[in-house]
């Protein structure tokens, strides 16, 4: 009897062992993350999350809103899905300030499901946001940050570069230089004043301009910092009068501030001959509306992009979707930022047997760094080791006929940078 009971126990044991083997044997091999800074796993039917840090309030809200609209528009054109997952966008307002950028970044990195970030709008916000998102292992692709030191770690200000940061916009080191050359060599100006806001973007542009202008033989008779939300401009006008400059360079973030300054300068007879030269913020309709007649004769530098049907299609789609055209000429940069990140995610995403998606964070950074000749609307993009993916091509314009609006402005380019770029570039119109 003992032998028979033993045999039964053995048989039961074998059955249990076989069942255990079958149970463990049929399951798929679990994905093992070997990325040095971790992976994001998106389970089947879960949304794939991207963060968006843009200036959704404050003086740069026009640009920020345009960028938000374009991001949503591109994803809607993909039916809101990416890699067979619904896409969820997590928005955070950077308020075009370092503190706003910091808080926005903190909001996004708190969610471990966020794969990457589009933003920021303002370079000042990027200074804090880039550090926070970088330390959290994320990537961030900005369509409009242009501050020099965000992607130039070998400069004295280079401490502001953080791994994982990329941008499709140009680098202001080139724009400041181009503006100085334009002022000195094409406008024959020798004495300049600079008004900036003291943040990363405006100070960077001002310094680059000043360095090159001085190197060419010019003189910077005044460099002052203003608060862009400060409406008391009397002391500034007074300083400009004292400076006796031939021109004033206004590398500021808010179009309405530049418009206010333009009006104030033009309102003072002793400053009436002072030439006004600004950046892309003067290319907004807001500037034109607020500056009015005072805008006539002012110069501005804007990015130069290839006039392609794709950009027109994007502008048309924007018009259709939001009832009005994009307020700036920079929608191509946002488009390129979106497609650049999506393409990189596609390249590194691993789909396991359960249908779950795995994205290595370091792999994603490397994929972005390895971007070569990405077909963007602003041209073919290639990213360098510090995250600069955009091209530095600019055109200088002059307001002459307000009745033609922004379209009229773009019909009369006065100078191209680089100088030989004039032959293959034309200026688009968004109005």
């Amino acid at each position: 009897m003992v032998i028979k009971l033993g045999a039964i126990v053995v048989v039961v044991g074998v059955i249990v062992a076989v069942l255990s083997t079958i149970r463990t044997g049929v399951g798929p091999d679990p994905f093992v993350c070997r990325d040095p800074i971790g992976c994001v796993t998106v389970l089947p039917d879960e949304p794939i999350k991207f963060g968006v840090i843009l200036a959704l309030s404050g003086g740069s809200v026009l640009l920020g809103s345009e960028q938000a609209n374009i991001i949503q528009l591109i994803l809607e054109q993909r039916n809101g899905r990416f890699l067979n997952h619904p896409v969820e966008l997590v928005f955070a307002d950077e308020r075009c300030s370092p503190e706003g950028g910091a808080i926005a970044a903190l909001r996004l990195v708190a969610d471990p499901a966020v794969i990457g970030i589009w933003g920021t709008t303002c370079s000042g916000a990027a200074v804090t946001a880039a550090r926070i998102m970088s330390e959290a292992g994320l990537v961030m692709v900005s369509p409009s940050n242009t501050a020099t030191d965000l992607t130039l770690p070998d400069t004295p200000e280079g401490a502001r570069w953080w791994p994982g940061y990329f941008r499709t916009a140009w680098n202001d080191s080139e724009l400041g230089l181009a503006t100085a050359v334009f002022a000195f060599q094409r406008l024959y100006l020798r004495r300049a004043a600079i008004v900036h806001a003291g943040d990363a973007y405006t100070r960077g542009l001002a310094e680059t301009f000043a360095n090159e202008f001085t190197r060419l033989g010019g003189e910077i008779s005044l460099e002052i910092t203003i608060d862009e939300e400060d409406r008391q401009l009397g002391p500034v006008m007074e300083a400009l009068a004292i400076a006796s400059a031939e021109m004033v360079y206004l590398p500021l973030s808010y179009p309405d501030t530049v418009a206010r300054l333009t009006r104030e300068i033009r309102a003072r007879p002793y400053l009436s001959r002072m030439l006004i030269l600004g950046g892309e913020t003067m290319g907004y309709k807001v500037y034109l509306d607020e500056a009015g007649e005072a805008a006539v004769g002012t110069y501005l530098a804007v990015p130069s992009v290839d006039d392609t049907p794709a950009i027109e299609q994007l502008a048309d789609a924007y018009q259709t979707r939001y009832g009005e055209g994009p307020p700036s000429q920079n929608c191509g940069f946002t488009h390129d930022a979106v497609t650049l990140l999506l393409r990189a995610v596609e390249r590194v995403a691993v789909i396991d047997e359960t249908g779950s998606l795995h994205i290595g964070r370091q792999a994603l950074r490397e994929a972005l760094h390895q971007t070569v000749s990405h077909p963007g609307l602003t041209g073919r993009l290639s990213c360098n080791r510090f995250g600069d993916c955009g091209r530095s091509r600019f055109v200088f314009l002059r307001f002459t006929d307000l009745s033609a609006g922004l379209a009229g402005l773009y019909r009369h380019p006065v100078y191209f940078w680089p100088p030989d770029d004039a032959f293959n570039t034309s200026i688009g119109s968004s109005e």
Partner: protein
Amino acid sequence: MSGLRRHLTRYWQGLRVTQKFSLLFGLLTALLIASAVTAYLVFAFIQRQTETMILTSLEIQRLVLEMDRSLEKARRLQRDFFLHYPELGLAEARDRYAEAVVMHVAGVVDMSSRLQRLIGQPEIGSAIKENRVDLNLFLATTTRFGETFLQSLSLITEAAEETSGREAELEANAVWLATILESSSDPILIDRYRQMRLAEKEYLIKRQRHLMQSVLNQVFLLSRMVENTSSLPEDRQLAALVHLNNYRAMAEQTADLDRAIRSRVNEFNLQAETIDPAVSNLIRAAGADVLETRRQIDQLVRRAAVILFLIALIGVVLVLAVGRLWHLSISRNLTRLTETARQMQYGNLRVKAEVDSRDEIGQLAEAFNAMVTEIGSKVSELESSRQIYRRLFEDSHDPITLATPDGGIIDINQAGVVLFGYPLETMKQFKPKDLYIDEREWQAFIGRLTEAGYVSGFETRLRRSDGRVMEVVMNTTVQKAEDGRILFLQTIVRDITEQKAREAENRRLQQQLDGIINSMPSTIIGIDAEFRVTHWNERAAENTGISADSARGEIVTEVCPILKKEKHLIRQALKDRQARQHNKVARQTDRQLQYADITVYPLSTDGHNGVVVRIDDVTDRVRMEELMIQTEKMMSVGGLAAGMAHEINNPLGGILQGTQNIRRRLSAELKANQSAAEQAGIDLAKLADYLRQRNILDYLDGIETAGKRAAHIITNMLQFSRRSESRMAPTDLNQLLEKVIELAGNDYDLKKRFDFRQIELERQFDPSLPLVACTQTEIEQVILNLLRNAAQAMSGPDQKQQPRIHLRTQYENDAARIEVEDNGPGMTEEVRRRAFEPFYTTKPVGQGTGLGLSVSYMIITHNHNGTIEVQSKPSQGARFIIHLPVKAAVRVAGAETGD
């Protein structure tokens, strides 16, 4: 399922009553223990789970609230710091507020980390887990709050520190500036200075950027005025400009610091906006988790109650099942058995107990049933068995006897009566001596029977009634009583007289066949289809050194290597059933080449195919054929050479004679020559000088030498056709060989090319060698020729070892055997075969005539009726073997010595 049930039923029925008792009560006991253990485990589990869940939830809730309180306190302290540091002073404000802020922030961060760890535990409710993002945000924002606060503290210190802060330096420069400007007594300068200070104070109150720009504008204008004033001495003017410059720098830095501090303040507000909803969410989630925990505890308790109820229910069902099993297995069968026994008591032997179990009760029932059946069947079985046995006994074709242990016949069947020819009753009177030819065989039979208890295959001779003796084989068994006493011997007798006769005849035929095969000079091997040896005659054993017993059953090529290359012959013979033959198969043994003819005959025996291989040693025949061919060739060549020699000899004689005549007729000493010279007017002395100068005499010497050499060759050639005219005499070959060795040592021709003394000579002379009739000079010539050849062969560069010549004599087969063996380079088979051909030589041109061995051959074979052969292989030296017949020698010697 039904199969399992059947199996379990059989298993249960096979158990004994005690085993069933043990199993049933064991099952009940196990059930009770399992119920108790399960109840204990369930309650223990619930207790542990509930405790953990409640404690964890409460801890989470406590941490969240504590974090919120601490952070709120830190923020309040931070606000107080900003509010009070201008009036308290930076150091006092830092001590009172800033350190507390940092401490509270550190506490919040620590609690956040603990909270994250707690949330990672599996028993935690889902609400707080779903708010993990809020918790992360809370933790990150708190950390950021601490960092921002420290940054603002640093900025404020840089701006407002009492002695070295920017504002203090601004004030210090302004005071210095005031002192200098007041010394100028220039009211315009002092007025501009006051405007600058007024603007500065306004800025410090309002902290608006455009106000600082007004200050900077005033600084610029004042600087210009100081540069252009004449109311200040130059050194004071310069000092004023330096202070103005410092003042401007401090003013700009103060504005920048204010801007940075304002940015941090803005961030504090943003942090508050961010963190407050997150904290609310966390507090709400923690509360929700406590509620969820309570709900789960209630659920656990309900499940535990259900489990305990189910355990109790299963226990009741199992108890009922055990009781039912008890009734079916034991009590019901006992009732049936009792009823069956009662019926048997009343004489009903056909009744059977119906118990379907194999336990003790079942076995008891079976025993009951078996008893009745057994009694009825025993009688009929016995009768049936007796009849069968009698029929077997009587119908057997073999005689069967039943006898007492002392040999008295008890019974014998019909076949026995026929075999012995005695009536049954007569045979019952017989004792062993009446049947056995030799009574000792009866004793041997009894001996084997006593020893083994039976006898099998016992052969003996018995007597028939007609007096004939017959060979029989007996198989006997013993039938014993229960006490071991022998009842009778049962013997089966078989007449094997004819069988014995046939076996004897077969043995005789086999021996005769073996004798025939073994007496054959050939090697005869029988092989089956698997190439295994079945027959192996004595010649085969002699040639291979393997006995017939060892060879039988082995693969034939393993025991007879010569057949390794002839397997195809065997295969073909097996396949075609036709004889196959391969003649003159060569085989090297030691230093001798042997030849054999191999013939394979197909053989069928009892349906089994095989072959018989016959191997005939034809070495002697082949040698003889070679010898005959060689001799014939030599004789032909000899005749030809002799004819040619005669023809050449005459003109050669003329040449030699003519040469001598020329030499004589050139001599100045002969008068005939002198007179002929005088008549011709020739001076013989001058002629001699002329002949010497023109080497004509040397040419004559050359002609003469060549002629003599040709004559020597001719002489040798004549040896082929001319039987020696020398006389044969009985000769001691050993002495002759010694003499030849001495001659060789002094031989000039030999010496001039090779020092014969450097050759080791080894002699192995047979002292019993009889005298041999031979022409001594000719045999000496032959031996000397062989020694020369050997010495010359060993003088070449290929000689790697000490040159050595073995000289041997031996008496064998009525012949004297002389061997001359060297350890030189040997010869190829081609050279060996042609060695005795005339004019065949391996020496360089001019060094040999190629006639030495040919002449030796003629001397031995033609002049002495002997044989000469050579054995050699490359690098293994050469051995010349000469056989000179002794009988002929004796006969010749006899003839010469007297007859």
